[in-house]
C-alpha cells in the first residue's frame, strides 16, 4: 500500500501540468490597466519629483484610452463570449459593456483627480506632508501639532502655510486608482467566488488609501478612510464566510457549479441560503445599498471630491456587475426562495435614500443619500433576472455613473478660501454669480431626478418597464413614489441656486482647468446623448447574456 502511494506520488510529480489556455486578446484591457499600474509604481520610484505629475497623468490617460481602444476593436469582432484562465474569468457581453463603462468613468475620474487649477498643487496630500496641515486645529497648537516628525524641529505655522499652498500633490493616487480600476474590471468578470473575492480586495484596498489623501480637512478625510476600511473589512469577512458556506454546499466555488448544485434537491438548504445571504451582504455593502449603507455618507463627505466621484461611479458599477453575475448565473434556479428578501432590501434602500436625503444640509452627503436611493433602483433591475432587466441595469449603471462624476466635478468648483463650500447654504443664488455652472448643475440634478431628455429618465424607464414585465408591479409603484420624494431634494437645490439671493460672503466659483472642464463636459454630453438617443447603447447592452 505504502509502495503504491509512493510510486503514485512520483508519477504525479513527473507529470507535467498543462497550463490553462489563456485568451490574451480577450483579457488584454485588464492586463493593460494592471501593467500600467505596475509601471506607475516604478515611475514613483525613479522619475524625479518635478516630472512625476506630468508622467503619471500622461501614463494613466494613455492607459485608459489604449485599453478602451482595444476593447472597442475586440467587441467589434462580435465575440461569442468565453471563459478563460481555467474558467475564472468570463468575457461575455455584460463584461465587455461593464469594462467599457468602467474605462469611461475611470477616464473622467482621472481627469478630476489630475486637476491642479482649482486647488493650487492639486486636491491631494502635498509632498511635504510632515508639516502640519494649514487647518485651524493644527494652527491652534492642539495635539495635531505632534504629527511633525523629530527630523523637522517644530516648524512654525506661518512658513508651513506658505509652502503648503504651493507644494505639489503626491502622485501615488494615480497608481492606486489604476490598481483599483483593474480590480473592478476583474470583479465584474469573475466567474468563481474566489477570484471575485481577490478582485474585491484589489479594488477596495487602494480605495481606502485614496479616501485619506485629502489636502484640506485632513482629519475628516482620514476618519473617512478608517471608517471605510473597518466597515469594508467587516463586509469582506461576510463575503468570505458566505463563500465558505457555499463551498460547503456545492463543493466548488465556481458560479456554474453552484448553479448546478441548486438544481438538485438532496443538499442542505441551510448552507445555501446562509451562504447566499452572507455573500450578498458583502456585495450590497460595496454597492452602498441600504441597509448596508452606513458608511456611505461619511465616506463620501470626507474623501477628496474627485475620489468620491470615482468611488460613487466606478465602485457602484463594479459591485452591481458582480451582483448581476452572481444572481443570474449561480442563483437563478433558487430565486423563488430568496427574491422576497431582495425585494425588501430594494424597498429599504430606496426609502432610506429618499427620506434621509431630504434632511441633509451638506451637498456631498445629499448626493451620497441619492446614490443609496439609486442603488435601490439598480437592485430592482438586478433581481428581475430577465435579459431585459440585465440590459436595463447595465444601461442605468452607465447613465448614473457618468452623471455622478460630473456632479462631483461641479461640486469641486464651488469654494471658499478654506476649500470646497459643501454646505447647502453656500449654494444659494449661485446662478446670479456663475450662470453657466448653475445651469450645468441643474441639468445634472434633473438627470439624477429622472426628468425626460436626460439619461436618468431613460435609465429609470427601462429598469421599471423590465420590472413590470417581470411581474414586480408593487415594487415599481414604491420606486416611483421614492423617485418623486427624491426629486424634491434635487429641486430644492435647483430652487436654491436660481431663486435665492446670494449670501454676501458666499463662495466663489473657480474657473475650471482643462481637465475638470473635460470631465464635466464628458458627463453632460453623455447624459444628454443617452437621454435623447439611448437606442445604440441599449442595443449594445442587450447583445447577449452571461456565459459561465
Amino acid at each position, binding site marked *: *500500500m*505504502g509502495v503504491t502511494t509512493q510510486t503514485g506520488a512520483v508519477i*504525479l510529480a513527473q*507529470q507535467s*501540468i498543462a*497550463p490553462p489556455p489563456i485568451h490574451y486578446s480577450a483579457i488584454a484591457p485588464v492586463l493593460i490597466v494592471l501593467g500600467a499600474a505596475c509601471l506607475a509604481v*516604478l515611475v514613483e*520610484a*525613479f522619475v524625479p519629483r518635478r516630472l512625476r505629475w506630468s508622467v503619471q497623468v500622461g501614463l494613466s490617460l494613455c492607459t485608459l484610452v489604449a485599453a478602451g481602444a482595444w476593447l472597442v476593436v475586440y467587441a467589434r469582432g462580435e465575440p461569442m463570449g468565453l471563459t478563460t484562465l481555467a474558467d475564472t474569468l468570463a468575457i461575455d457581453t455584460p463584461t465587455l459593456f461593464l469594462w467599457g463603462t468602467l474605462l469611461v468613468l475611470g477616464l473622467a475620474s482621472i481627469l478630476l483627480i489630475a486637476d491642479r487649477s482649482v486647488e493650487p498643487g492639486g486636491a491631494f496630500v502635498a509632498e511635504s506632508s510632515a508639516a502640519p496641515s494649514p487647518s485651524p486645529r493644527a494652527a491652534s497648537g492642539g495635539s495635531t501639532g505632534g504629527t511633525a516628525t523629530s527630523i523637522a524641529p517644530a516648524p512654525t505655522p506661518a512658513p508651513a502655510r506658505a509652502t503648503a499652498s504651493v507644494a505639489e500633490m503626491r502622485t501615488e493616487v494615480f497608481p492606486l486608482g489604476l490598481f483599483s480600476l483593474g480590480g473592478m474590471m476583474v470583479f465584474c468578470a469573475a466567474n468563481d467566488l474566489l477570484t471575485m473575492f481577490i478582485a474585491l480586495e484589489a479594488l477596495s484596498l487602494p480605495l481606502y488609501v485614496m479616501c485619506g489623501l485629502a489636502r484640506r480637512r485632513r482629519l475628516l478625510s482620514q476618519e473617512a478612510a478608517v471608517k471605510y476600511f473597518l466597515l469594508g473589512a467587516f463586509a469582506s469577512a461576510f463575503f468570505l464566510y458566505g463563500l465558505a458556506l457555499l463551498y460547503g454546499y456545492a463543493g466548488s466555488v465556481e458560479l456554474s457549479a453552484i448553479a448546478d448544485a441548486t438544481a438538485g434537491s438532496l443538499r442542505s438548504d441551510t448552507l445555501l441560503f446562509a451562504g447566499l445571504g452572507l455573500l450578498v451582504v458583502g456585495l450590497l455593502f460595496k454597492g452602498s445599498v441600504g441597509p448596508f449603507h452606513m458608511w456611505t455618507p461619511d465616506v463620501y463627505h470626507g474623501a477628496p471630491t474627485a475620489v468620491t466621484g470615482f468611488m460613487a461611479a466606478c465602485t457602484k458599477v463594479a459591485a452591481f456587475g458582480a451582483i448581476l453575475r452572481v444572481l443570474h448565473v449561480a442563483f437563478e434556479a433558487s430565486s423563488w426562495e430568496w427574491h422576497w428578501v431582495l425585494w425588501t432590501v430594494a424597498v429599504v434602500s430606496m426609502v432610506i435614500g429618499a427620506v434621509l436625503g431630504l434632511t441633509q444640509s451638506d451637498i456631498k452627503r445629499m448626493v451620497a443619500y441619492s446614490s443609496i436611493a439609486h442603488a435601490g433602483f439598480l437592485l430592482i433591475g438586478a433581481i428581475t433576472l430577465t435579459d431585459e432587466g440585465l440590459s436595463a441595469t447595465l444601461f442605468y449603471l452607465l447613465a448614473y455613473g457618468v452623471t455622478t462624476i460630473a456632479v462631483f466635478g461641479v461640486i469641486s468648483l464651488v469654494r471658499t478660501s478654506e476649500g470646497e463650500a459643501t454646505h447647502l447654504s453656500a449654494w444659494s443664488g449661485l446662478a446670479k454669480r456663475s450662470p453657466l455652472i448653475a445651469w450645468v448643475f441643474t441639468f445634472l440634478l434633473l438627470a439624477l431626478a429622472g426628468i425626460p431628455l436626460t439619461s436618468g429618465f431613460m435609465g429609470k424607464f427601462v429598469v421599471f418597464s423590465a420590472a413590470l414585465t417581470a411581474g414586480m408591479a408593487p415594487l415599481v409603484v414604491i420606486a416611483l413614489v421614492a423617485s418623486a420624494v427624491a426629486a424634491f431634494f434635487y429641486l430644492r437645490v435647483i430652487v436654491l441656486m436660481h431663486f435665492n439671493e446670494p449670501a454676501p460672503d458666499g463662495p466663489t466659483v473657480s474657473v475650471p482647468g482643462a481637465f475638470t472642464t473635460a470631465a464635466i463636459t464628458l458627463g453632460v454630453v453623455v447624459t444628454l446623448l443617452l437621454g435623447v438617443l439611448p437606442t445604440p447603447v441599449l442595443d449594445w447592452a442587450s447583445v447577449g447574456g452571461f456565459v459561465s
Partner: protein
Amino acid sequence: MLDPYIPLVLMFALALGFAVFSVAIAPLVGPRRYNKAKFDAYECGIEPSPQPTVGGGRMPVAYYLTAMLFILFDIEMVFLYPYAVSADSLGMFGVAAVVLFIATFGFADLYVWYRGGFEWN
C-alpha cells in the same frame, strides 16, 4: 493501513520532545544575567500596556512599516515554496509565471527602497 502516518507521529514526537527539552534545559544551563529588557514581553518591542504617555498613546509608525514589509516578504515565500516543490512539472509556463510574480513584487520593493522605506534608524 496506518503506515503513512508513522512519519507524522514521529515528527510530532520529535517536535514535542524538542520543545520540552528546550524549556527544561534552559533554566539549568543558561546564564542568569538580568537586565530591564529581560522582563519585557518577548524581551523586545513595545510594551502594550500601559500606553506610552508620550504623544498621547501613539506608537511610532515605523513599527507598522517594518511589520508590513515583513508580511510582504513572508507571503512571497509562501508562494515561492510550493512552486519550488513542483517546479519540474510546471515547465516553462511555471517559470514565466513565477518570474512575473517576482518582478511585480520587485516593483513594489524598488518603490519602497527608492522612497526611503528601508532606512531604519
